[in-house]
């Protein structure tokens, strides 16, 4: 029982980080139908922002987190303005190739500045508790609670504010959104800022949990978050969270009961099967074109 609880706690931690990244994929897809393949690298830049805030500026946890979120948000908006906006009317495949290119550019740009892996100094005093055979750390709790808090914050913005209404309207059909007086470009920028900001938060927390960071760390984590978003139903915000929790749980459980090298193999196989059964993802719906 204690072993199970331990694994569930570990799964929650991993899933929360996937979810914060998956949200960015799904929001951008929802609003401009683009798989933003540079998103995993925004997560990586978030980690490096946290590293710089801690190592060079000597900031503590919360300011470092904020700086990392703001830095990532700016990067997200810059990517959209410079790389994707000029291609909005272009075939989707051009935009996707551009996204891959942007990702490779960010990785190599970071590599040129940081040729060796960096170590993020511990920003939080990590206290560990043992309770009936389950050990949990303050870092783990902070990661889980903060992620859930950020998800509720995003949910509030998307489902309770005019900006969120505009985002959802654009995702339905952006043709007539300007007729409501809504500046579409501004809403798209906000969407990128929110998605990238959450990825920055994920990068910070990931970096605190696994402090050795390098410019390629975003690739695998990014792919997994992307797949979590697809499993949940890409374009669907709550789906991205559900998909992330499925993926994170499967990964942790595989490691708990099988050799850890099976992790990615089993996880991806399960996800492929799920996609075969439900091609639009768990909460995704095939859109019928209305006349």
């Amino acid at each position: 029982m204690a072993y199970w609880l331990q694994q569930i706690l570990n799964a929650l931690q991993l899933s929360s980080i996937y979810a914060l990244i998956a949200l960015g994929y799904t929001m951008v897809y929802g609003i401009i139908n683009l798989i933003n393949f540079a998103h995993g690298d925004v997560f990586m830049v978030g980690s490096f922002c946290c590293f710089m805030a801690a190592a060079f500026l000597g900031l503590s946890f919360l300011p470092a987190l904020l700086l990392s979120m703001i830095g990532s948000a700016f990067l997200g908006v810059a990517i959209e303005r410079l790389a994707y906006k000029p291609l909005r009317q272009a075939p989707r495949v051009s935009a996707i190739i551009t996204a891959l290119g942007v990702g490779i550019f960010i990785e190599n740009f970071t590599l040129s500045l940081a040729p060796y892996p960096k170590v993020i100094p511990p920003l939080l005093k990590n206290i560990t508790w043992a309770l009936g055979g389950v050990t949990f750390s303050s870092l783990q709790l902070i990661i889980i609670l903060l992620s859930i808090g950020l998800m509720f914050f995003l949910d509030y913005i998307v489902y309770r504010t005019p900006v969120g209404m505009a985002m959802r309207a654009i995702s339905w059909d952006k043709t007539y959104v300007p007729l409501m007086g809504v500046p579409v470009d501004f809403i798209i920028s906000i969407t990128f800022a929110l998605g990238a900001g959450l990825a920055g938060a994920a990068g910070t927390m990931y970096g605190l949990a696994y402090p050795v960071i390098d410019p390629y760390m975003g690739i695998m984590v990014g792919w997994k978050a992307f797949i979590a978003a697809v499993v949940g139903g890409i374009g669907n915000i709550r789906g991205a969270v559900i998909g992330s929790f499925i993926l994170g749980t499967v990964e942790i459980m595989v490691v708990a009961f099988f050799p850890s090298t099976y992790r990615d193999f089993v996880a991806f196989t399960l996800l492929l099967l799920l996609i075969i059964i439900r091609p639009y993802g768990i909460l995704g719906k095939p859109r019928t074109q209305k006349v």
Partner: protein
Amino acid sequence: MNMHRDILLEVRDLQVSYGHIKAVKGVSFTVRRGEIVTLIGANGAGKSSILKAISGLIPYTGHILFNNQDLQKIPAHKIVDLGISQVPEGRGIFGNLTVQENLRLAAWQRGDKQEIATDYDRVYTTFPQLKERCHQLGETLSGGEQQMLAVGRALMSRAKLVLLDEPSMGLSPLLVREIFKVIAEINLNGATILLVEQNANMALRLASRAYVLETGSVIMSGGGKLLSDPRVRAAYLGA
């Protein structure tokens, strides 16, 4: 020049092209403050393109002046701020937003919560069916209800000029009459109306003046007596 001051919208030599196809070939017309003006014509006459150009949704050449201000360089969402609202062809309801959210979005440029609440009431008084469904998603509405919601959104924006693109499309004669009654009401409350219709009979009864379009050009214009013009009757009224 009192006449000139009365002009709310002036379209001068408007041309719209889609690639090599010219959809609108030098159309000019005016809409005076307080009028209901209708553009009638068959499918492909260029009616919708004219409305889209006025709202800034598509590029065009020529001039569109609203309150003597040239709209050419103004982005679509700012044109709404100036006081032009469009009820687009096919209604353009956001199916994933609730009825009330659709209305709220149309009041985007307005901040005053109190006023917005007053306007919800106004819309719900005009269309009681919408009130019953205010928390339902737009996609669950019937065609008639969607049209009411689309007109409701125009009310929310408090537009000075309301552009309506085929509000009768796909509706039963009873609903068409109801929608046209509301359009007349909106006009009585001070908004100027530019109505695009294939249902020429209804449109001509309502409008103070009409322009008849054929393949991208104005071929006729006039007041209510267009109804009895034999050419109009033959072409659009099935008589």
